[in-house]
């Protein structure tokens, strides 16, 4: 076995002028990492600063070298406030020795992925996705998510993405790999076809529509023809779906030993020079936007990841995390200030729904508290893509009403006796009798 040791400066193409970075200890779906450093410690680039005991989470690494000045709650793009490690940048580019392994076997690859803590765009760590214990038939790289595509799929990155896919095939034991590309996306199609000449086990799979990271079950159905249950994952039908970002990070982690500390972020909207910026994890959005020339006029809204389902930020001090692909800035007059009206029953939500449910009807039932009806109308099948809210001519908050009914159904339980109106009660069930915690009875009789 030949082992290459690559020691290099991982920070070469990142701008220099930065005083501190904020690295949240939770960047994935799962448990919060325990900090491995304390205030006053000196850390190097790539040093592990947060970890955990079980397989569910993903460790975090220092992205700059310097001194830990605080361990406290800081703004977070998804969780609003989160325990973070604040590192003051000391000006040196001191890095730990990154160990690459070009001929790693399956177990070594899995071990590397576990240690490097790569997170896919759906929030699950790549190691967790590979380690489900299910038989995997094929691995897909989803190239239909616009934000992921614009950030990570550049012509220079294509060989790395292909090698990332090969590593993932080796790690999962799958026999086939494929790139999922939109049919009308000629640029991506032609760029890939040129590079895939000699590969036999890697295919191109054209699909009609775009699939964001919340719609992976749907993509698995499109690929295999097998339906995935709404609590299931694509691995149930033998498919694993990764983003271009994960493939890139996997090849970097395994071949060069570098954990994901440099992230490609597309900045668009009301900034002076929109474009793709390579930023270290923990840089605040303000610094990323300043490196794009700053705001045009007064910013009205800053949205992370996706303009349809992304989260609007309350401050621009939130850090770039491992699952950030896009920062969208809206100017003040682009911010929507519409008022929801009555449902017209125009059925445009039904026509756009990729999950084939009736969003308008579910939202109306959720609005009046009839969650039992919502369940009958398959509210739980909603994949929360937000298209129904986008096309609604009456500007109703369909996505939020359906989400509300899904949360209510999670908390609900059936009561035995038949009733004329709603037969669902909500709450923790102990609410039927006076609460032992002294809380007032909140959910009584459906609404």
């Amino acid at each position: 076995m030949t082992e290459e040791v690559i020691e290099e400066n991982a920070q070469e193409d990142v701008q220099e002028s930065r005083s501190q970075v904020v690295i949240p200890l939770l960047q994935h779906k799962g448990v919060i990492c325990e900090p491995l450093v304390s205030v006053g410690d000196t850390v190097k680039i790539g040093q592990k600063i947060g970890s955990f005991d079980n397989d569910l989470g993903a460790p975090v690494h220092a992205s700059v070298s310097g001194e830990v000045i605080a361990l406290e709650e800081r703004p977070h793009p998804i969780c609003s406030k989160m325990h973070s490690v604040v590192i003051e940048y000391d000006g040196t580019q001191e890095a730990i020795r990154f160990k690459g392994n070009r001929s790693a076997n399956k177990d070594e690859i899995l071990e590397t992925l576990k240690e490097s803590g790569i997170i896919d765009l759906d929030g699950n760590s790549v190691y967790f996705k590979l380690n489900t214990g299910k038989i995997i038939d094929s691995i897909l790289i989803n190239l239909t998510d616009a934000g992921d595509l614009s950030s990570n799929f550049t012509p220079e990155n294509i060989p790395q993405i292909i090698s990332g896919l090969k590593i993932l095939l080796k790690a999962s034991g799958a026999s086939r790999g494929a790139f999922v590309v939109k049919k009308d996306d000629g640029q991506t199609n032609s760029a890939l076809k040129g590079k895939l000449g000699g590969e036999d086990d890697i295919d191109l799979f054209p699909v009609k529509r775009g699939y964001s990271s919340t719609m992976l079950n749907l993509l698995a159905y499109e690929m295999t023809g097998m339906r995935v249950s709404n609590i299931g994952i694509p691995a149930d039908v033998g498919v694993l779906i990764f983003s271009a970002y994960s493939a890139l990070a996997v090849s970097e982690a395994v071949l060069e030993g570098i954990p994901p500390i440099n992230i490609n972020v597309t900045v668009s909207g009301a900034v002076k020079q929109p474009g793709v910026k390579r930023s270290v994890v923990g840089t605040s959005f303000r610094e990323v936007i300043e490196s794009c020339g700053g705001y045009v006029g007064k910013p009205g809204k800053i949205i992370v990841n996706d303009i349809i389902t992304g989260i609007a930020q309350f401050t621009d001090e939130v850090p770039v995390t491992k699952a950030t692909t896009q920062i969208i800035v809206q100017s003040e007059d682009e911010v929507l200030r519409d008022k929801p009206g009555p449902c017209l029953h125009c059925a445009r939500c039904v026509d756009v729904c990729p999950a084939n449910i009736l969003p308008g009807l579910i939202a109306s039932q959720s609005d009046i508290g009839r969650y039992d009806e919502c369940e009958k109308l398959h509210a739980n099948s909603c994949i929360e893509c937000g298209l129904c809210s986008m096309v609604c001519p009456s500007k109703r908050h369909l996505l939020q009403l359906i989400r509300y009914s899904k949360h209510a159904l999670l908390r609900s339980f059936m009561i035995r006796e038949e009733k004329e109106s709603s037969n669902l009660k909500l709450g923790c069930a102990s609410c039927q009798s006076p609460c032992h915690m002294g809380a007032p009875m909140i959910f009584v009789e459906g609404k």
Partner: protein
Amino acid sequence: MKLAVSVPPHIKLDDTIASINWTKIAVLIPVCMVSIYVFGIDVLSILLISVFSALITEAAIQKLQNQELTIKDGDAVLIGLILGLLLPPTVPLWIPVMGAFFAVALVKHAFGGLGSTLFNPAIAGLVFLNMSWTVLMGVDSVPHLGQYSDIMLELGAGRLIEVSPFALIGGLYLIHKKYIEWRIPLTYLLTTIVLAVLIGEDLSYVFTGMLMLGVFILAADPATSPITKNGRIIYGIFCGILTVLYGYFSYNYGLAVIFTIFFANAVSPFIEKNTYPKPVDEVMA
């Protein structure tokens, strides 16, 4: 720095209730002009009185109930305009007032207002007028498209809407803008024509301005048609069959469209309930 925080999505389509309704009104304007040309300037008073009675009724109801005034969204104007177009040119001027009041007060607002109506208000208004003042509502002639130029200008029209089937071509623009969906208009039109040809009916009686209004505006009215995709196809076919049945036995394809859609509105919830789609993620047994 102040940033707006709101729930997703952060962009929405520009279409609103008002834009949908005013586009439908714009599609009906050409046929109004042709009818004024054919029947004289007097019919303008029928249309205006119908529109204004509908507006005043809606405003009065919303004022009385302390609701927000929504006359700007164009729904009352649309109801009044369609009702005026469905009338014969010879009616006394109090007829549109009665019809518009009935349509807006008892058919639209009594059932819950915009989007919640069980029947199309304009059609229910016409049915009410027809039953109450049958003699006054009689038409002088039944349209017959004897030659091709009658598609453009039909001088034998009995009602304002029947003067020109071609003037309603703007309905295609509504489909293009997705303000109405293609399933109902297409299946309704195809079923009617195919059935009429099959039973040997003269197409020149079938293909009137009334049918075009029914296909593009009345049958595809969002509130009274099924919301499921399959339901809409069944609804369109159902409308087509009923139109030919009514027309074949009553020799009046104009009123056939009206009573067809009136009846189809009544069964639309039943069609909808029985065509709920299967969600994509359901696990096959």
